[in-house]
């Protein structure tokens, strides 16, 4: 390469690199993901008076999350575990995120996807899941059992 052609390609490269670097830098900031903010609202699960009997009780809670440009309102299944002093656990399997179901005849939770099993107190029995069902922060207020919703991703980080 002669000195002349290398000078020419340098003069060509530098201004173009400056243009694309400035757009590239802005693009990185522009595309950076925003973690969704869970609202810390306390959501009603059930009246304490309804919680009777030894079986886990399935409930739906409706949680709001601020995700990007929208507030998303979404259903989530939870279980109240009388076997563990009415602890509330998420129905999301801690393995790959399918929803577990309660099997009354075998007295355990089973995950339909990869056959993880959990006991009536939420602890892991067998299968690929590495931990028991995730408990949610709960409290009793005015005779009502309430929880805060925490997503699986957040529970894993914690």
């Amino acid at each position, binding site marked *: 390469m002669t000195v002349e052609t290398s000078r020419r*390609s340098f003069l*060509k*490269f530098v201004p173009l690199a400056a243009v694309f670097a*400035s757009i590239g830098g802005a693009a990185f900031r522009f*595309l950076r993901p*925003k973690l969704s903010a869970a609202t810390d609202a306390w959501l009603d699960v059930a009246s304490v008076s309804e919680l009777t009997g030894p079986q886990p009780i399935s409930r739906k809670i409706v949680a*709001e999350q601020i995700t990007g*440009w929208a507030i998303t*309102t979404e259903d989530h299944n939870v279980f109240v575990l009388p076997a563990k002093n009415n602890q509330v656990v998420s129905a999301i399997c801690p393995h790959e995120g399918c929803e577990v179901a309660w099997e009354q005849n075998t007295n355990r939770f089973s995950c339909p996807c990869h056959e993880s099993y959990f006991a009536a107190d939420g602890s892991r029995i067998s299968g690929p899941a590495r931990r028991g069902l995730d408990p949610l922060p709960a409290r009793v207020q005015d005779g009502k059992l309430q929880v805060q919703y925490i997503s699986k991703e957040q529970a894993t980080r914690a």
Partner: protein
Amino acid sequence: MRDNSWLQTTTGLVIVLVAVQFLTGVLLAFYYVPSVDHAYTTVSYVEKVVSSGSWIRSLHHYGSQWLTVFVFVHVIRLFLDRAYALNRIQWIAAILLLGLVMAAGGTGYSLPWDARAFFSTRVAEGLMAGLPIAGGMARLWLLGGSDISPVTLSRFFALHVLVIPALIGFVVVWRLFRSQLAELFGPRDAIVGALVFVVLGLWALKHPAPLGPPVAEAGADYLPRPGAQFLWLYQSLKYIPGGLGSIVSVVLPGIVLAVLVALPWLKRQRLIAGSLLGLGVVLVVLMTTVSYLSDRRDPRTAQQFARQAAAEEAWRRQPFNPATITLAAGVTASGGAPEMYTKFCASCHGTQGQGAQQGPLKFPPLLDVPSKPRRSVDDIVALLKDPPAYGLQPPMRSFSGKLTEEQMREIAEWIVKLKR
């Protein structure tokens, strides 16, 4: 190696600006949603929340105007260089690019779905409808139906984001394959391109791209203006009687572009192209100046623009207002509107009680109502049964036959919790 004088860098400049439009357009598409209920929200999100979002959008907005100007200058430079005779492909590619860049600007203007987008779509509709012979058909095809609707926005989106960029890509690739990129794009092109980009970048930092109010909130006195590259067309339409508008602003430019494309095969090239381009320059410069001056000289127009600018400035300072998306099956528990509210009330008072305006009708917001007299839960239930008893006028009607007492109470209990 070609004789690369500074005056010939318009090629490189156009290449850099086209690249900037592609890059910023792709970035905007990462957030933009082409639906009538979310387009405005996502554009606001880019403007207010996303890092560098306002700059990227402003680059895209003003970049499209600058690109139009520089493609036009490029065409004039090629004319002076007699490219129509010496390098046909270069000439034809430049003319096609001019038409496509204008089309991209026209379709892109509709996408934010703010008030100015709505008016610009209306004008496009009118111009199509006025075309001779196939006008009615052209209008239906552009809108995707008999009226401006969600389908229309999808059409403009597909044209702006897929069809026109693909055509521009074809033209550019076709042009580049016929000559060595290295010959076409020298150091001077790179330097001029980068310099113009720096100026555009600084301009975009200082001037965010405009965004009008949402269509539903624009008052009857809202004054829309097209993008700078269309001001001449907008101003010309004022002097042309009704039906001729489409001929002058769509058919004539189409014929001019077609003649310029065909120029390499015509005789008297210099005379034809010279007079067409000369007339074009005179028309564009004259009409743009007249439009600019008349907007500033007329005190009422100037005042209205000042009001709109102030409203936009105030809007920029307000926090971003997110949309609400319900993925839940039966929402009544926490915060979501009761089902019956969504069914009967939301179409007028808004999904979150924010109120709305439809033409002359104002539907009041339902926020902070307990602070007003006679608006307890019991009052609201009674009001839903008998609005006139609470001093309300049609179109607010009684819901006695539609809702049960229990459903009214559910709605009332939800409404009193709404805060500004």
